[in-house]
């Protein structure tokens, strides 16, 4: 059966069988896992740092407007910033707002942005929390509002506001919620630790989300190397007496944690290009998001802390933390025994998709799942960048079945239309192509650049279109008013010269008649023909 040829409805039907058996996706890489090193010790909650930097942009969307100003006292969990319809930002501690200023804020750009700097008072005094104890009976809309008020965003990396996704899901007949626990990038182990330590919370979150979305069932997808996790999750599901949750193991292959790839593995179907999982009746959320949902709904706790892995060959004692948002990474590094001597690069996220940090002063944000310290040896390339030899390795591993070698040339040379046609926007920036390229071309950098340019061009195009319309409207308006004025003037004139005009008309008709007789050779001077003449010339 060719799954690509099915109709949309058939695909949704088929997607209901998600998880029954696993499928393959194109390409991908088997990478060394390197997760063990950070899973040896239990997760600890670090002591409070001297000050916390809470960026006002920790999600996809606009920068939040702060509610507080320098000098204000804040309580733990108090909302300190919001923008409609983004996720709310909360204070992770109780203390004083020292300043609101631009600081490096853990954004991939490395740019500074508005942050609230809070000095903790050490009392850890919570603000008043509103929880929804009886969530089983609550209206989904109430739940969604609760998620929004608690500042929930996807913790799998995209930090997309959860309430938006949930609200959209309610309108789209979601039948299956997929919890993404297949943390596929090397080194990162925060989701695994979470699933080991708090399976009940994840199951609870899954049930709440299921209700919120109106889905029938939940699939928790984990990697086949996480044996203990499966047991823990299944036990938790059994304890909750929840039949609709199943735990599915998928083979470890990067980037299977990518939503589209995971869906392909679970259903054998592809999310339509330019579409979303909800087109198949699916919603995918990270397991940590689910745990945070449980906290938010049952305890009313906003999203102020998350699991963070601090690992890599550049860290003396890699481990996981349950860190408050806003904690500087340097604080966590110090608690992990500090750096080794040959540390050379800091990365937030995994080695494949993470972004580099210029300084370890930057704070933990909602998106920070891992701080990876790499040594010079780790990042040393055996060869400089060379021209592409079109070997096709990149295309073989590309999970989006693109032709990275062609895309690269198109982006590099600004052939935007062609790049569009070759699916630049379908690139998930997974880095597989980059990793195998024998020419060491920074393909993903090029694709990120290209996608940025394309977005820019699209914006420009709408702006241009808008300007054109406004210009044309204005022209039309001016023309109309001019004509109206002229008509008015003419009417006045006519009124004045009524008589004279009449005489003129008589004169004119006499002249026409004379004209006719003066041209004997022309026996058919159709009036239409004459009328058209001025146009013709």
């Amino acid at each position: 059966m060719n799954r690509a040829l099915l109709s949309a409805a058939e695909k949704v039907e088929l997607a209901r069988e998600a998880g029954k058996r696993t499928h393959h996706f194109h390409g991908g890489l088997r990478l060394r896992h390197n997760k063990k090193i950070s899973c040896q010790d239990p997760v600890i909650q670090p002591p409070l740092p001297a000050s916390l930097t809470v960026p006002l942009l920790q999600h996809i969307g606009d920068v939040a407007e702060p509610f507080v100003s320098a000098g204000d006292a804040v309580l733990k969990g108090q909302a300190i910033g919001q923008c409609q319809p983004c996720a709310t930002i909360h204070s992770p501690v109780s203390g004083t707002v020292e300043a609101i200023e631009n600081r490096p804020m853990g954004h991939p750009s490395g740019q500074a942005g508005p942050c609230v700097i809070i000095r903790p008072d050490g009392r850890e005094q919570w603000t008043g929390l509103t929880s929804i104890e009886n969530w089983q009976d609550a209206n989904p809309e109430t739940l969604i509002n609760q998620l929004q008020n608690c500042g929930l965003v996807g913790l799998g990396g995209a930090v997309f506001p959860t309430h938006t996704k949930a609200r959209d899901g309610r309108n789209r007949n979601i039948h299956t919620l997929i919890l993404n626990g297949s943390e596929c990038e090397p080194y990162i182990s925060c989701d695994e630790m979470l699933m080991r330590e708090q399976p009940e919370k994840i199951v609870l979150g899954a049930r709440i989300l299921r209700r919120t979305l109106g889905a029938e069932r939940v699939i928790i997808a984990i990697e086949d190397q996480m044996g203990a996790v499966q047991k823990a999750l299944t036990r938790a599901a059994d304890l909750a007496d929840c039949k609709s949750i199943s735990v599915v193991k998928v083979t470890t292959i990067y980037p299977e944690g990518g939503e589209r790839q995971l869906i392909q593995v679970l259903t054998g179907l592809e999310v339509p290009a330019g579409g979303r999982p909800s087109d198949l009746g699916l919603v995918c959320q990270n397991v940590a998001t689910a745990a945070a949902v449980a906290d938010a709904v049952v305890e009313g706790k906003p999203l102020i802390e998350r699991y963070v892995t601090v690992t890599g060959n550049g860290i003396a004692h890699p481990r996981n933390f349950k860190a408050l948002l806003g904690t500087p990474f340097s604080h966590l590094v110090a608690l992990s025994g500090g750096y080794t001597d040959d540390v050379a690069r800091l990365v937030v996220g995994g080695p494949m998709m993470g972004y580099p940090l210029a300084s370890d002063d930057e704070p933990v944000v909602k998106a920070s799942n891992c701080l990876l310290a790499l040594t010079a040896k780790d990042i040393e390339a055996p060869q400089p960048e060379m021209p592409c030899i079109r070997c096709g390795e990149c295309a073989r591993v590309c999970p989006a079945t693109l032709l990275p070698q062609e895309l690269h040339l198109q982006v590099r040379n600004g052939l935007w239309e062609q790049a569009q046609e070759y699916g630049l926007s379908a690139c998930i920036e997974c880095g597989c192509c980059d990793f195998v390229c024998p020419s060491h071309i920074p393909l993903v950098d090029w694709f990120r650049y290209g996608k940025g340019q394309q977005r820019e061009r699209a914006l420009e195009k709408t702006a241009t279109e808008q300007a054109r319309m406004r210009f044309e409207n204005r022209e039309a308006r001016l023309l109309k008013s001019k004509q109206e004025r002229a008509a008015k003037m003419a009417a006045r004139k006519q009124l004045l010269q009524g008589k004279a005009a009449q005489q003129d008309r008589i004169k004119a008709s006499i002249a026409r008649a004379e004209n006719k007789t003066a041209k004997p050779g022309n026996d058919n001077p159709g009036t239409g023909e004459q009328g058209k003449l001025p146009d013709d010339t």
Partner: protein
Amino acid sequence: MSKGDLKQILVDGSWRQNTGLVVLLGLCPLLAVTNTVINGLALGLATMLTLMVSNLSVSLMRGFLRPEIRIPAFVLIIASVVTVIELLMQAFFYDLYRVLGIFIPLIVTNCAIIGRAEAFASRNKVLPAIVDGFATGLGFCITLVLLGALREIIGHGTLLSGAQMLLGDWGQHLVITIVPGHPDFLLAMLPPGAFFALALLIAARNAWETRKENTQNQPVTVLNTGHDPA
């Protein structure tokens, strides 16, 4: 029309806007008949003659031609001139006529000629038109000869072989052997060699022109590994 203008036309036609090397028109004869210098020279002269006569006539007629018959009219004029030349060659240079073959009547379609008629002669007075025809023809002829020389030397190691076809029997003694005992390098004689030779000629001209332009501008030796446009 001052002397300076005419000189300008001469330089433009024969070097700056050289049909073969810059404008890339008239490529077919340029590649097809240049396996020896003499062939090139002969066709070059014939083309030059055609250009001058056609420019002259087009310039004379420039007042009357309406757009829809402009091209047919030019073509008619050129074709007449070329046929005359063809008949004369057939009568007086029969061997050459046979060697150049179909490319003599095809002078008619040498895009350069109609191009000059259209772009220059139909807009200018008679004298500049003739000078332009001469200059363009000269440029074309020089290119033909250069290309012929390049191919003949590389291919055969000789120059001016077959001169008797153009000059009569005494031409036989003009043949110069540049590389004695040259093992024929057939590539130069075959179609691919023609393309390569012209490419090299144009590249040489480009290199010459750019060097002239920026003698003080030192070329940078650090360059990208690949695909970035300059």
